[in-house]
């Protein structure tokens, strides 16, 4: 096989002292998609940037070679080329192009996208403005931009997220590069848009025959797009194999850990997740020997901690860097190698009895104001006519694309927004009319965990004061009582009690989220609303938090409303799921029902969009085009009608009501006649 880029012994140093990447070997094959996988902080992005010599200050390549095979057969060592040299500029955008996670910051807001696409073209080829325009429009058409001739003259803010991503891809591909580096290009996108972009990248790769280096932390995406996979940990490749081999037969404990910690939708999606303990240490504190050994359950004190790891070739292009496969393999007993699964959790609780929280016809509209006297000129209908019950001890998942109103619903329930109309009952309290003691009880009984653990903890306060605030404000608790409670909570969420004296900036994201959860639990609540509580965290940390939340639920009898856009997480943690679209619940039912037997076309499309669903195999994929309707415009009929593949004329006139049996409701006029596809029961993670 021809290799486009061969990286040997690459070393990238920051600030002259810290090696972020240390002795990395990586071959990027021509005409294939290589996925680079790992948690954040493993050096994936910086490795990709080193290929283009665009590492951010104060980092630099301090050793090794990056050999790029030129079209004429000669070899260029990028590591030895000056970043500012004309030769390097020729490579950038010409031979190797790059796309990013955030197109809004990658594209200039001051120029039209056409301007930026043709600039890339004119820099590398002698070509007139007119021809550049024709080529640019053709490129936009190829990347599936709707109405390319008109979009060519659009500015970035006039495009939707998916369109921006397409524009950025067009800009990268205009010079027909031989290698495309895609750095988490779909991470910031909604799942349905992500599916479209992944399809597009796959198609373009097959058509043009370019090599793709695709960086991601999502193994579902890997299954969807990769030909080969390289797993990276702390600046080194620890395992490398063809995609099918790696996903079905992972060897390295890190790869196994990543796979075990990923919420899956195949097989039993309620199966407990197994998190890799701890987190990626900063490169300055890289452990000696095998750098993964402190988190590895196979690690043997006598060697992993001090003997450096060598790569072992297992045949069939499968390479692994682990002592358990090396010359000392006999020291690792067979028993330790098979990862034991945690005990299965109790079967999902049946919704029964009197609801803890009961919502009827809830509306929340945000006024759009304009003019000097701030008159109301319109309203964003964020939450529309929502009715649902939450039963004691269960977890209700709220899922939907961004802008569907799920967060607003959660925040309205907890009291951050005042509902416009409707009825909310908590236990025996009328939430909307509660005052005085009742309001106080609501404040302590319904608590919230925010998405961003950095923003939700006041940086000026010690952890003790943050957690204890709710006790200080509500009721008479002495300082000693609060101190004791805080200590108890900290150990309950898996933190050392002496962390109480510290400030939030001393903690990592996962630890901060634990503190945020401890704060939510401080007042012994009955209901906790978790607003994307794990979305900002790395996979393994996310799994640690999910597992901890499940344990806390079992111990304390908590009820959760879990808001997330991640279907895998929702499937894993929820007993029942509500799917939201454009401010309404379109489907509500038990998790099994929603995922195995969806009745609303939107749910079907969401499920189909989850990466790694084996869509390539069937060929008949369901992809949503267009985007969520503008919530400021009043709608007639079903809000999903414009994107629905089963739409009829009746859908555009009648607003479908939420109806069905108690354990499975849907809001689709045609739900009885439609046969919708669901996620498969069997292992679907592997696509090929």
């Amino acid at each position, binding site marked *: 096989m021809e290799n486009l880029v061969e990286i040997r012994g690459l070393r990238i140093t920051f600030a002259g002292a810290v090696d972020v990447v240390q002795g990395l070997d990586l071959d990027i094959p021509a005409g294939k998609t290589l996925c680079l996988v790992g948690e954040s902080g493993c050096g994936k992005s910086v490795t990709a940037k080193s290929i283009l010599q665009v590492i951010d200050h104060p980092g630099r390549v301090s050793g090794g070679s990056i050999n790029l095979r030129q079209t004429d057969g000669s070899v260029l060592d990028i590591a030895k080329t000056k970043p500012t040299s004309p030769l390097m500029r020729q490579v950038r955008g010409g031979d190797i192009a790059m796309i990013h996670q955030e197109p809004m910051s990658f594209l200039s807001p001051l120029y039209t996208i056409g301007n930026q696409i043709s600039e890339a073209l004119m820099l590398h080829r002698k070509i007139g403005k007119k021809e550049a325009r024709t080529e640019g429009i053709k490129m936009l058409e190829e990347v599936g931009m709707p109405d390319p001739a008109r979009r060519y003259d659009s500015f970035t803010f006039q495009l939707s997220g998916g369109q921006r991503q397409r524009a950025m891809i067009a800009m990268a591909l205009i010079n027909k590069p031989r290698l495309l580096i895609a750095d988490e290009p779909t991470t910031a996108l909604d799942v349905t848009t992500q599916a479209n972009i992944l399809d597009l990248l796959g198609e373009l790769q097959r058509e043009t025959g370019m090599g793709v280096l695709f960086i991601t932390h999502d193994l579902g995406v890997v299954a969807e797009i990769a030909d080969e996979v390289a797993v990276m940990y702390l600046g080194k490749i620890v395992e490398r194999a063809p995609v099918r081999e790696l996903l079905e037969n992972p060897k390295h404990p890190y790869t196994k850990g990543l796979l075990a910690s990923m919420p899956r939708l195949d097989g039993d999606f309620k199966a407990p997740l197994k998190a890799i*303990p*701890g*987190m990626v*240490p*900063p490169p300055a*504190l890289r*452990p000696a020997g095998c750098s993964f050994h*402190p*988190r590895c359950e196979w690690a043997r004190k006598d060697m992993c901690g001090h003997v450096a790891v060598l790569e072992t070739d297992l045949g069939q292009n499968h390479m692994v860097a682990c002592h358990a496969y090396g010359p000392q393999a006999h020291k690792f007993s067979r028993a330790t190698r098979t990862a034991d699964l945690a005990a299965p959790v109790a079967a999902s609780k049946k919704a029964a009895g009197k609801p803890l929280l009961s919502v009827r016809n809830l509306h929340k509209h945000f006024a759009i*104001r304009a003019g*000097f*006297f*701030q008159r109301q000129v319109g309203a964003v209908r964020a939450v529309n006519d929502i009715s649902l019950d939450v039963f004691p001890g269960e977890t209700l998942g709220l899922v939907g694309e961004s802008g569907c109103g799920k967060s607003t619903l959660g925040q309205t329930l*907890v*009291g*951050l927004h005042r509902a416009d109309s409707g009825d909310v009952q908590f236990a025996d309290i009328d939430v909307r009319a509660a005052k005085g003691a009742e309001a*106080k009880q609501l*404040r*302590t009984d319904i*608590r*919230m965990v*925010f*998405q*961003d653990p950095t*923003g*939700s*903890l*006041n*940086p*000026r306060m*010690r952890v003790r004061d943050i957690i204890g*605030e*709710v006790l200080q*404000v*509500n009721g008479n608790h002495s300082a000693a009582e609060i101190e004791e409670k805080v200590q108890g909570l900290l150990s309950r969420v898996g933190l*050392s009690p*002496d*962390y109480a*004296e*510290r*400030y939030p*900036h*001393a*903690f*990592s994201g996962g*630890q901060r989220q634990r503190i*945020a959860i401890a*704060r939510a639990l401080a007042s012994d609540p009955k209901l906790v609303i978790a607003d994307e509580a794990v979305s900002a965290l790395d996979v393994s940390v996310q799994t640690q938090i999910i597992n901890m939340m499940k344990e806390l639920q079992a111990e304390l009898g908590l009820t959760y409303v879990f808001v997330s856009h991640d279907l895998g997480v929702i499937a894993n943690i929820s007993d029942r799921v509500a799917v939201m679209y454009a401010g309404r619940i379109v489907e509500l039912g038990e998790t099994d029902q929603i995922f195995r037997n969806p009745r609303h076309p939107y749910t079907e499309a969401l499920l189909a969009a989850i990466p790694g669903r084996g869509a390539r195999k069937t060929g008949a994929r369901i992809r949503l085009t267009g985007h969520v309707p503008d919530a400021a415009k009043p709608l007639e009929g079903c809000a999903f009608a414009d994107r629905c593949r089963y739409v009829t004329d009746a859908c555009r006139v009648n607003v479908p009501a939420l109806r069905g049996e108690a354990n499975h409701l849907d809001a689709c006029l045609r739900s009885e006649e439609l046969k919708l596809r669901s996620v498969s029961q069997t292992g679907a993670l592997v696509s090929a």
Partner: protein
Amino acid sequence: MTTFDETSGMVSPAPEKRRGQGFEGHWALVWRKFLRHRLGVLGGMIVLLAYVVAAIPDFLAPVTLEAYNPAYAYAPPQQVHLGVSTEDGWQFRPHVNAYKTVIDYNSGRRIFTADPDSIVDIGFFVVGEPYRLLGFIPADRHLFGPVEVGQPFYIFGADRLGRDILSRTIYGARISMTIGLLGVAASLVLGILVGGVSGLFGGVVDNVIQRLIEFVQSVPAIPLWIGLAAAIPRDIPPLQVYFFITIILSILGWTSLARVVRGRFLAMRNEDFVKAARLDGCGPVRIIFRHMLPSFLSHIIATVSLAIPGMILAETALSYLGIGLRTPIVSWGVLLQEAQNVRTIASAPWLLLPGVAVVIAVLALNFLGDGLRDAADPYAD
């Protein structure tokens, strides 16, 4: 020091240490970040020095404000010599040379030249004219000056009445440095009040206040100052003039501070931790004073330190134009009045030296403000 915990895989500060990284509060972090801003630290030291000078000018200046000697009108700066050469070799003996005066009958001016034979010795902690330190401690020692009282000692030269420019510049610091502080303090009260109301209530109130601020900012500053300054009665005591001037300066100065405060309030209101405090059941007063205000206090301090130089410059400009402070009050602006006409500057350029003091003070305050602004949010990296 951070350690890497082998078993949990977590990075944590050593448990037995109660100080260091995780235990440091906001101000400790701000201080540490500020110290890394070299220029800011330098500016801070100069500003500190300037306020020390402003506090005890009587002690630092060689002579008092009242001292004058017409015989030395427009005397040029004297050169300071560190020692003298005698037969026994070089000897440490700081001194200046007295003047030899010749009257040029063509121009009618005195021409001064240094007289190498007449030595004026400089001493430290010398006895000079009596004064009251900080206004109440009687004293007669000066940090440095001529050993014998009354000898000519003009390191920065003399003005038209033969007064020592150095002493007057040192005294000028008292007014010029404090007027900025007082003016900003007055603006700050107005700014926090108006900006806070604007940011808290929002809606129509915010809209009206913001338009008002835009109106005030659109009024040309100098004509407005001139108009207001002209309205100060001529016969009131100098101390009252001083307070009038501070008020005039802050009439325009509060607007930018109000904007900063409003912006902070608006941004802070939507922070998750403020929402969390609301959910904890905190009332508005507790939210503002316990959660919001501490979070942007450091930003306000930085803004304030950047507003002081504007005030100093404004006072200097007003006084220079003759509509601000007037003699007998001595500020740097008042001193620069002497340098109003070109012919005087041509023959006695040292009259501009108080201007150098203005430049140094303003630059130092700007550097300090820059450093503080960078340090105000120590969590950025």
